[in-house]
Structure formats: structure tokens, C-alpha cells
């Protein structure tokens, strides 16, 4: 019996040791990200029947398990990808918002200065200083527009490098998750017990992955995590990761897009809308929704100004009595033929009516019999049996060769409008202020040029230059505000989900202090039991003396 007491004491001692060990582990990892507190699952050892009844045989530790709720963890993951996506979008759009914040630095004051100098010219049509001032303020307006555009281009290049790094981070996580699937499987099969810390590490990786892109986990029967992103694109299946690739857009060499390697070895581009949430989703959404639109809107103001101002300028005559030329240089639309095209067609685009331009890009495709032009801002598609065709003030024509079925092109009418906006005139005497040749005091055309400032020339004759620019500022402002609010809401959501998860799985140091006391006392009590067993045995031995 005494040996039995000793082994009961010993089992209690072991259990208390495991308890202290686990408590210590919890305390040590109280601030480890992704750590779920662990608890000892203890049960009474199987009792032995002695005839007079069952006698307990001490205790046993059945397992150490982590306190983890898959449901709560999934909620946190979803909230995390939503929040990071919105935060990323917000951080990007704020750059544009801040750029437009200073009322003295935007395009607006430069536009006003330019037209003020045109008015001054109309007061002194023969004055060379007044003419020079028109050229100088035009130069400074062009520099302001180009400067804003180059800032937007810089942001786009920044997105390329961030997409690249995000893709590489996603691939690293995917590889690590695949490796952990393997390690966890092995550990579990070998011991039949859950490898808690490895499981924590894998769940934390899934959470980190959700910061980059929204990822859905489907748990396999054997405990492996299969991870899917985008439109159900498998990223990790069992122990195999399928990496994403960042590739140059087929229709725009300045842009990186995200795709994956298909089974036949080719790269399939997923498209900006294919990824939601996370840093990558936020970046791509910002690029397609806001950045392009802003650059196009600025380009449209520049093209509209150049086109209408040039038209009026060409109606007049300069100091030497020669008919006016182009005052501004106007940028042409950009056409990008897909690198995957098999036909020989080259497509040209030119602006026929600046007043009809939108801020959208257009997708042109050929299916073997007809052309389809899709306005990307609202996905309005129109079919045409042949080219040339004029769409929203842009004439699209076939300038050579022939297309093959499946060929496509990206037409961006206003994308380079701001970058290509510059002053064509260099000689102040070339400004056409007069409405008739040979009259240096004739200011009629200068008056007409000045009147363009307040004329509704853009967007189908509904807004002024300033109005179109104001629309852009207001749109950016509205979207930024919207993101400010939704991103704050997403932060709250994540916080609530995390609080719920943490209240279940997080370590509370006061609780651990209590456990420490509990197991310490259990250890001391078990030791006492063993001491008594020793005493009993000693008492037995003294009988024989």
C-alpha cells in the first residue's frame, strides 16, 4: 500500500510540475503575437478494485491543449484583411489629398494667374512685357500641371515596388505555411498530441498573410491548411505552395500586375479586381479606382485647355500679322497593344473633340468578326463591325496590319494629357491677340481668349477648366473622407474581434499568478504525501528492530 501512496504522490507531483511548466510557458509568451494560452488537461488515474471498493491511483495528465476558437480566429483574419486593405488605400489616397491640400500650391492659382495675364494682354495688346507675361504664366501653369502629374506617376511607380514586395511576402508566407503543414502533420502522427506552438505559428502566419491579401483557409481532414486567395486561386494545398508572380502588364509597360503560373507554364494575369483586402488588394484597388482616374482627370483638364485655347488662338493673328499657331502642346492618346496579340494590327487614337472626353480608359478587343470598345469606368461595351469609330471624342482607327481574333488593346486618351502639356510658343510676338492681320492695337482675339476662363468648355460643355479641376479635387476629397470613415470602422471591427479572441485565448498574468500559486501548493502537498509514505514505510521497518 505504501508504495502505492508513493506513486500517487509522485503522479500528483508530476502533474503539478506540468502545471507550473505550462503556467511558466504562458507567462513567458504573454506578449508573443499569435500565442494562445495553454491549459493542462488532467484526469484521475484509473482506480483499482480492492474488493472493499475502488481505490484511486492518483492523477494523470491527458494532454496540454491550447485555448483556441477557429471561429473567432477566422473573424479576426477577415477583419484584419479588411482593415489592412482600407488602411493601405487610405495611406495612398492621402498622398494625393495632401498634395491638393495647399490652396496656394495647386493648379488653380496658376490657372488664375495665366488668365489674369491674358486679360492684361487684352488691355495692352501691343505691349511686349504683357505678351511675355502671358508666356511666363503659361510656362508656370504647365510646370504646375506637369509637376502634379509627375507626383502621380511617382505614386504609381511606388505602387509597382510595393506590389512586388507584397507578392514576395505572400510567397514567403505560403511557403512557410506549406512547410508547417508538413511539420504539424508529422508531429501529430508521431505523438498523437497537438503540437500547440506549431499550430499557433501557422495560425499567426495565416493572420499575417491576411494583412497582405484576403486569404481563406479550408481545413483538411488530416489537419492541413489549404489556403485560397482572390477568385479561389489556390495558394497552399497541403505541403505544396503555388507562388504568385508580379508581371509587366501586357498593355502597359509601366505597370506591374499580379498573376500566377498556370499548369502549362504560362503566366495568367489575374487583374486588379481579382484581389481584395490586405495590402495588395488595397494597392490594386487604389490604382484602378483612384490613381488612374485622378491622372486622367488632370490630363483631361490639360488637353481641354490646350485644345480650346489653341482653337481660339489659331483664329487670331500675331504682331507680325501672321495667323496664330498652337499656343500649347497637346498630348496624344496612348495606345497599348497587348504583348499577347497574334495579329499585325496597329491601332491609332486621336482626339477629335476635347469637350467630349471622359476620364476613363478604353479596352478594344477583336473577336475575329467585330471590334468591341469597353469604357472601363462603367464597363459599357459597344460593338463595331469596322474601324475607324469615334467614341467619347476619341477616334480609334486601324493604322496598319490586321488584327487576329482575341487581340486586345488598351486606349488611354487622357493618361499622358498632363505630362505632355507644355507651351508651344517661345516668341512673345507670336501670340495672336488680334482678330485681323496688321493691327497691333487689335485686342479682340485676346478678349476671346480671356473669356475662355469662364466658358463651359469641358465634359460636353458643362464645366469650366477650373470646374473640371474642382471636380477632381472634390472627388479625391470625398473618397479620402469615405476611406477615413470606413478605415476607422474596420479598425474598430478588428479591435472588437481581437478583444473577443483574446478574452478567450489571451494570457492574463493575474490568472497565471493564481495558477502558479495553485500548482505550487499542489506540488508541496504531493511532496507531503510522499513524505508520509516514507514515514509509514519507516514505521514498518522499526517493527523488526
Amino acid at each position, binding site marked *: 500500500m505504501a508504495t502505492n501512496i508513493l506513486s500517487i504522490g509522485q503522479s500528483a507531483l508530476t502533474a503539478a510540475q506540468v502545471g507550473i511548466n505550462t503556467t511558466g510557458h504562458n507567462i513567458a509568451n*504573454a*506578449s508573443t503575437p499569435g500565442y494562445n494560452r495553454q491549459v493542462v488537461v488532467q484526469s484521475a488515474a484509473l482506480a483499482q478494485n480492492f474488493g472493499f471498493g475502488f481505490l484511486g491511483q492518483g492523477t494523470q495528465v491527458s494532454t496540454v491543449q491550447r485555448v483556441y476558437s477557429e471561429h473567432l480566429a477566422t473573424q479576426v483574419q477577415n477583419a484584419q484583411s479588411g482593415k489592412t486593405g482600407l488602411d493601405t488605400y487610405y495611406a495612398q489616397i*492621402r498622398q494625393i*489629398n495632401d498634395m*491638393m*491640400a495647399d*490652396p496656394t500650391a*495647386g493648379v*488653380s492659382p496658376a490657372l*488664375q494667374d495665366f*488668365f*489674369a495675364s491674358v*486679360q*492684361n494682354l*487684352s*488691355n*495692352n*495688346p*501691343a*505691349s511686349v512685357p504683357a505678351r511675355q507675361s502671358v508666356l511666363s504664366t503659361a510656362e508656370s501653369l504647365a510646370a504646375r500641371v506637369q509637376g502634379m502629374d509627375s507626383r502621380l506617376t511617382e505614386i504609381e511607380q511606388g505602387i509597382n515596388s510595393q506590389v512586388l514586395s507584397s507578392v514576395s511576402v505572400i510567397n514567403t508566407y505560403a511557403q512557410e505555411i506549406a512547410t508547417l503543414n508538413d511539420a504539424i502533420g508529422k508531429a501529430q502522427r508521431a505523438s498523437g498530441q497537438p503540437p500547440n506552438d506549431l499550430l499557433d505559428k501557422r495560425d499567426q502566419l495565416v493572420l499575417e498573410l491576411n494583412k497582405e491579401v484576403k486569404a481563406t483557409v479550408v481545413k483538411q481532414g488530416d489537419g492541413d491548411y489549404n489556403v485560397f486567395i482572390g477568385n479561389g486561386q489556390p495558394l497552399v494545398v497541403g505541403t505544396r505552395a503555388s507562388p504568385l508572380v508580379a508581371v509587366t502588364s501586357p498593355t502597359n509597360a509601366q505597370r506591374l500586375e499580379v498573376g500566377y503560373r498556370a499548369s502549362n507554364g504560362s503566366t495568367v494575369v489575374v487583374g486588379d479586381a481579382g484581389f481584395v483586402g490586405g495590402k495588395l488588394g488595397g494597392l490594386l484597388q487604389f490604382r484602378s479606382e483612384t490613381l488612374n482616374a485622378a491622372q486622367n482627370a488632370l490630363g483631361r483638364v490639360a488637353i481641354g485647355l490646350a485644345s480650346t485655347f489653341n482653337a481660339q488662338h489659331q483664329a487670331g493673328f500675331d504682331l507680325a500679322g501672321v495667323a496664330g499657331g498652337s499656343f500649347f502642346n497637346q498630348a496624344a492618346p496612348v495606345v497599348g497593344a497587348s504583348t499577347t496579340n497574334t495579329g499585325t494590327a496597329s491601332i491609332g487614337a486621336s482626339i477629335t473633340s476635347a469637350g467630349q472626353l471622359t476620364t476613363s480608359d478604353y479596352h478594344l478587343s477583336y473577336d475575329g468578326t467585330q471590334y468591341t470598345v469597353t469604357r472601363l469606368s462603367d464597363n459599357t461595351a459597344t460593338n463595331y463591325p469596322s474601324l475607324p469609330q469615334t467614341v467619347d471624342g476619341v477616334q480609334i482607327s486601324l493604322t496598319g496590319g490586321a488584327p487576329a481574333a482575341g487581340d486586345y488593346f488598351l486606349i488611354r486618351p487622357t493618361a499622358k494629357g498632363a505630362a505632355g502639356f507644355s507651351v508651344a510658343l517661345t516668341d512673345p510676338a507670336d501670340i495672336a491677340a*488680334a482678330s*485681323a492681320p496688321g*493691327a*497691333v*492695337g*487689335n*485686342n*479682340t482675339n485676346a*478678349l476671346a481668349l*480671356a*473669356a475662355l*476662363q*469662364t466658358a463651359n468648355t469641358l465634359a460636353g460643355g458643362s464645366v469650366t477648366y*477650373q*470646374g473640371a*479641376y*474642382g*471636380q477632381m*479635387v*472634390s*472627388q*479625391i*476629397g*470625398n473618397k*479620402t*473622407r469615405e476611406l*477615413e470613415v470606413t478605415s476607422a470602422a474596420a479598425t474598430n471591427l478588428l*479591435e472588437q474581434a*481581437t*478583444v473577443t479572441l*483574446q*478574452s478567450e485565448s*489571451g*494570457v*492574463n*498574468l*493575474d490568472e497565471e*499568478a493564481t495558477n*502558479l*500559486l495553485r500548482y505550487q501548493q499542489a506540488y508541496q502537498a504531493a511532496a507531503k504525501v510522499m513524505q508520509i509514505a516514507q514515514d509509514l514505510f519507516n514505521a514498518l521497518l522499526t517493527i523488526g528492530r
Partner: protein
Amino acid sequence: MRISTLQLYDAGAARIGDVQSALAKTQQQIATGRKMLSPSDDPVAAARALEVAQSQSINQQYAANRVQVKNTLGQVDGALSSVSDALLGIRDALVSVGNPSLSDNERGFIATELSSRFQALLGLANTRDAQGNYLFSGFQSATVPFVETATGATYQGDAGQQLVQVDSTRRMAVSDTGQNIFQGGGQDVFQTLKDMVTLLQTPVVTPADRAALTAGTATGLADIDKAINAVLTVRASVGTRMQEIDSLDDAGATRDVQYKAILSEIQDLDYTQALTQQSRQQLTLEAAQQSFVKMASLSLFNFLR
């Protein structure tokens, strides 16, 4: 509810961070004096501010245009005032020709006076502004309007009238063509003067000569009267325009005040409100910091010795 220790710290830090960034924003508003720090603070107002600023800038440009118009019209009026003085002098001289006791010699003196009046008028008709542009040559502002000929003077300008945008809907003529002033309405003051000089230099011998002199002088007087009328008409119109400029100035100044008020309302910060908000946020921050420190220092481990 169970609270995890990690969450306790995270939440504490997050709250303090929130209040801090709100405080920083208020501080920035106070430092710049602007309510709107970026378009996202009030997108509608941001676009409206751009519009109003453009209206204000255009309004100010019209005011600058009006100053220019006033200067030019002042010069035109000054020149025309001298022209009408000269014409009145010529008229007096012609009236004195009617005195039958004048000798050929004395009429010769008057002819000389008229010749020099001719030069003075020609000079006035060829007046230039501060930039060196001729006032009365229409659009040909670099061309001398009148060149003397044997029988008077030829007009070298054109019929163009320079207009200036003085208000959103008003374009005002700042010049009147020399032809209209000096050679319009069936008279040509230069030709009349040349004719008169020739007439007065012709000796009166016969009664027929006398009759020709009387008739010629009468025609001349009538022509000069027409010329005086033409000049006065133009001067009256110049005066009216100057008056109109003054009233447009008043209206423009009122609008400027209105634009400024609107812009101020959209953009400017209410300091009282902002400073009150700042002290409130400061209080909240201090409270958040203190309560966090207190809560963080509470631990069961403090009592385990």
C-alpha cells in the same frame, strides 16, 4: 469578461494614440488658422473654395482692368479737352475775320495763328499714352494717326475700337478713332484749317474777293462748330464711361468683400472653438495616460513575495 494582459496594453496604447492624433490635428488647425487642412476634411467646401477663389481672382482682375481703362480714358479726356480749347481759339480767330477794317496784312497774322493751331491740333490728335501707343489710331496703335498733307491731314489708323473687359458682362471701349473725332460728321478740321489759311492769305481787292472771304469764313465757322460738337459728343461719352467705371468699381468692391467673407467662412478656423477643443482633448489625453499607468501597475505579482 476575461481580459488578456496583452490586450490591456494594446488597447491602452491605441486609445492614447487616438487622442494624441486628434490633438495634433487641432494643433495643426490652430497653427495654420485653417479649418480645412485638406480636401477630405470637407470635399464640397474644398471645391467651392476653389470656385470662389477663381471668382475673386477674376473680380480683382476686372478691377485692375478698370484702373487701366480709367487711366486711358483720363488721357483721352485730357487730350480732347485741349482739342476743344484749341477749337474754341480757332473759332474766336475766325469770328475776328468778320471785322471789315482788317487789312490783308492783319488777316495774314490770323492765318499764321491758324497754321500754328493746325500744328497744335495735329500734335493732340497724335497723342500717345504712357506705353507709347497712339490714342486715336484705332487698332493701329503703333502708327501715327494723322500725317500732314498740302490740303489737310490723312488718317492712317483704322476704325477699330479697343475694348476692355471691365466686368463679367461689360466690355468697354477705351479709345475713339481719330477719324471719328477730327474728320467725322461731314467735317474735316484739318482740311478746314488749311482752307482757312489759304483763304486768309488771299488778298481782298475786289468786292467779289470780299464776298468770297465772307462766304468762306462762314463755311469755316460752321465746320469748326461741327468739329466742336463732335469733340464734345465724344467727351460726353468718355465722361459717361468714366462714371460707369466708378459705379462698377463700387459693385466690384462689394463683391470682393462678399467673396472674402465666403472664403473665410469656408476656410478659416473659429479660434475660440478650436482652443476650447484643444484643452478638452488635452484633458482627455492626460486622463487616458494616468488611468493607463494606474491600471498597468495593478498586478497580483506585486503581492507575491
